[in-house]
């Protein structure tokens, strides 16, 4: 196994162009498990951990740009106000030691259907900045996940950063695992209210081949909220509508039966979480903005 350690981002891109099969290594919390358990033996590892420029994050006008080397603990410590759903999701990743090393970009690179960050990115709105020696392009996070552990990166591309839209309203993330900590998601739901556009976004994780937005449910709820003038009045959506919304989120699932949970349970739990996250988010909106008359 060849261990490649580029000193600069430009060099990293050149190495990746020359060796498209080289597997990028940042925190190593996914990759090293695969290697240690002999499930994967890449011929070349491309170590990005020396590239300090990847560890930066900064606020832009309406987004936060997170470098590919930023670990989850930074998201939790520094970005919880701007990116609440992502910070909540980050808090459920592994153990403190894992969160110190594991990166947001690594989560995207692995593209597991159970990746904790993904539903949060989907509801917040995010663009993945990917680069190669050929140039740089931006992939909306909705288009990034192609299948279980498959993403939109070309063989010579690396993730440079993720630009996540700053929250304009309450966001929620909730996940089900069969243990009370350090557990891979059986399923997860993220939900964001966007008062600026008067829309709601909902996304599911670990309940379909890829993380995905529950667009039918969003459309239904957006219609209900518009029709009932809920954005202006602040009144919560009617319980029957919230129930219907939760059922539509569950209907977006295409889960599997596996050792972590049955498909039926995943559908059921996504429905419960969808209802809970909607209620929580709407309650938070009411309490932060005061109860309109």
């Amino acid at each position, binding site marked *: 196994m060849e261990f490649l350690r580029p000193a600069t981002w430009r060099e990293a891109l050149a190495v990746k162009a020359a060796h498209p099969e080289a597997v990028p290594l940042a925190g190593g919390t996914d990759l090293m498990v695969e290697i240690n358990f002999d499930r994967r033996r890449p011929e070349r590892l491309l170590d990005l951990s020396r590239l300090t420029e990847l560890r930066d994050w900064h606020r832009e006008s309406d987004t936060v740009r997170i470098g590919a080397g930023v670990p989850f603990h930074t998201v939790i410590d520094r970005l919880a106000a701007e990116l609440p759903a992502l910070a909540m999701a980050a*808090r459920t990743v592994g153990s403190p030691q894992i969160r110190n090393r594991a990166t947001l970009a690594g989560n995207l690179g692995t593209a597991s259907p159970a990746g904790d960050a993904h539903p949060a990115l989907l509801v917040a709105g995010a663009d993945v900045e990917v680069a190669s020696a050929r140039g740089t392009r931006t992939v909306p996070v909705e288009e990034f996940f192609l299948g279980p552990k498959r993403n939109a990166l070309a063989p010579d591309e690396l993730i440079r950063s993720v630009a996540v839209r700053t929250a304009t309203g309450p966001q929620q993330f909730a*996940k*089900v695992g069969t243990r009370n*900590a350090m557990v891979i998601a059986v399923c997860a739901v993220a939900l964001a209210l966007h008062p600026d556009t008067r829309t709601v976004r909902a996304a599911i994780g670990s309940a379909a081949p890829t993380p995905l937005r529950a667009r039918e449910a969003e459309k239904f709820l957006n219609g209900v909220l518009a029709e009932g003038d809920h954005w202006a009045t602040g009144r919560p959506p009617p319980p029957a509508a919230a129930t219907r919304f939760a059922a539509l989120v569950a209907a977006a699932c295409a889960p599997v039966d596996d050792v*972590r*949970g*049955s498909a039926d349970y995943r559908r059921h739990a996504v429905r419960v979480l969808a209802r*809970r996250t909607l209620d929580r988010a709407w309650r938070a909106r009411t309490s932060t903005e005061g109860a309109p008359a």
Partner: protein
Amino acid sequence: MGVVPPPAGLTQRGDTAPDASGGIGESPHRPDGVLKVTGDFAYASDLWHEDMLWGHTLRSPHAHAEIRSVDTAEALALPGVHAVLTHADLPAATHYGLEFTDQPVLAGDRVRYQGEPVALVAADHPETARRAAARVRVEYAPLPVVHDEATATAPDAPVLHPDRDDHHAAHVPHPNVVHRQPVLAGDPTHAVADVVVRGDYTVGMQDQAFLGPESGLAVPAEDGGVDLHVATQWLHVDQRQLAPVLGLEPERVRLTLGGVGGAFGAREDLSMQAHACLLALRTGRPVKMVYNRHESFFGHVHRHPATLSYEHGATLDGRLVYVKGRIVLDGGAYASSSPAVVGNAASLGVGPYRVPHVAMEALALYTNNPPCGAMRGFGAVQACFAYEAQMDRLAVALNMDPVELRRRNALTQGDTMPTGQPVDAPAPVAELLRLVRDRPLPPPRPWEVDGGVDPRALPGGLARSSLGEGIVRGVGYGVGIKNVGFSEGFDDYSTARVRLAVVGGEPSATVHTAMAEVGQGGITVHAQIARTELGVSRVGILPADTSVGSAGSTSASRQTYMTGGAVRHACLAVRAEVLRLARDRLRRGERVDWRGDEAAWNDPGLRLVGGEVVTPRGEVLAALADVLGDEAIERELEFRHRPTRPFDRATGQGPGHVQYSFCAHRAVVDVDVELGLVRVVELAAAQDVGRALNPRAVRGQIHGGSAQGLGLAVLEEVLVGPDGTVRNPSFTDYLIPTILDTPPMPVDILELADEHAPYGLRGVGEAPTLSATPAIVAAIRQATRLPLTRVPVRPEHLTGT
């Protein structure tokens, strides 16, 4: 050159407090504690020899298959490979086993479980060994898989061990039954009850989940023998099984204990021991083997999964009339300790209750599932889950408080077990239940703090699945009975060598045993015993090895009783010799400065305290260092508990057990009833320990056992498919409790002496593992109103999905 060993010769002082002696009844610090917390403790996986090779095991991917051919040529051709061994290369005995000699060292013409060792490689790098193993070509022809009672005992079932010659072979109902034990008492056929409840229960396969995987280092010796440094539970039973396999006299198979990272039963069978020794003897080089977590799941036995059917009959005022039960344990591909597990399940199957009429039956199957054997609780855990569920069911049928029902039927000293064995030591079952019931309940809604929500106090924790939504509280109780020590006529003994001499002007004791310190704190207790009996402060503990007699297994809650008893026994012999020496010197007129006349020196109540010879009235006669002078006094003695006898094959009658241990639990749970997630809020325990030699260690055992019971209740299961393959061999998917799953565990300790045991003590380690599980499940039942007949309880069971 030489082995870099784990820390040896741990010298301990009684250093907890200025006025403490560090003797029994105190809680001196364990000498390995700080090392383990700081990461400095050397585990067997840290063993190193400068010219060592690395061993690797090739394992079967099939649960049941014929081996048509094995071709090692390609593996041997790989540079760096020193040896590849298959069944055909075995030099002597080809099989081993704890009770039956039925397990192949390497599979011959047939594999019987997924992960069965087929070939071994020694190479100069672990990666090379792994690659070489992948180049061994094995041609398998899959066979039909036997995976439960129906498939194992069907008329056309494949017989897994067609040539059985073990001592149970002649009287089992089917060759795929390892052992069957009935227990009959009273007249169960004609017993009539006012109220009858029936239930069928299932217990999943639990893993011991020790944190330090199987590991050891075998070093070939100049005399043609081998020195094996290994993490094990019982050095001498390893030696007994290894010698015939290696074709060596036992004296030339020398074992030394490596640093052990937990055991819980999983190290009672051989894992890599024979393999590393065979490779070392073949190559003439030291060979190290270390399993990773994945391999570890295939490298040791698990707890027997079980199906249990019970019928309980009682009077209207809640007195048990009869219990009928049938317990089917899945022993997997090889016998391991299944026969003894069957004996426990059958003889302890009605629980700590007085039952006039009993018809119990327990049996273990041979299947193509992973082999099952010893795990903390050993057959009593499975039964306890079922009989305690039955007691709750009976309480509902009688409209009676579940604790009151248990107390009305609680076993007590003077009662008789269904085996006919009298309970001749304290059995405070009712009192233990009272203690846990009378504790104040933890406050409701613990997640509400300062007007906000702390998700860590909720089911799901920081995953925020609930912020208070859907939570229902439940409370449940459980109590259990576990035997202590090896039962059914086994010649169970332990050996200790104790030496007393003056070192640097101070009398010092050295204790040498072969007891496997697996984390239970035995070496701390040995030093405490030596301090108490010999009145010294400084005690050295020599590394455990086979140069001293067997200590028996670190299992069955037996080591403080047995090796603690042996240390005490040897100390008393040393003390007697010290006093004889003193009297000799007095008689010869050597020490006229000593106090006391001949009568005082002949007082049988003389003790050694604080480095002095002291009379029963506390007068100091002489300094121990003066009495010893240049002499070193050493005694090696064996200690036995009172004998037991096998259970009658047809009736289960007989004094089969040494001692019983009792623990009761009250569990308080918060259940998210919509998502089926559970948080155990509090798990209170009460246990009679006879005498707490080290109260802190006793509490640690109760906490640890309770946590393991919690794991079985809501988390831990090795999932095996109908094809016999394991679906979750990793700590990613085999979930053990984290600190956020482990609640406060208040403990009440009773100390009612058992006059038959050293210091009146009672084995502690297993009883808390039994009752924690049923107490938690009872609490979940109360919260959800669901019958819940299976552990672990999964979210699917609570949500009907």
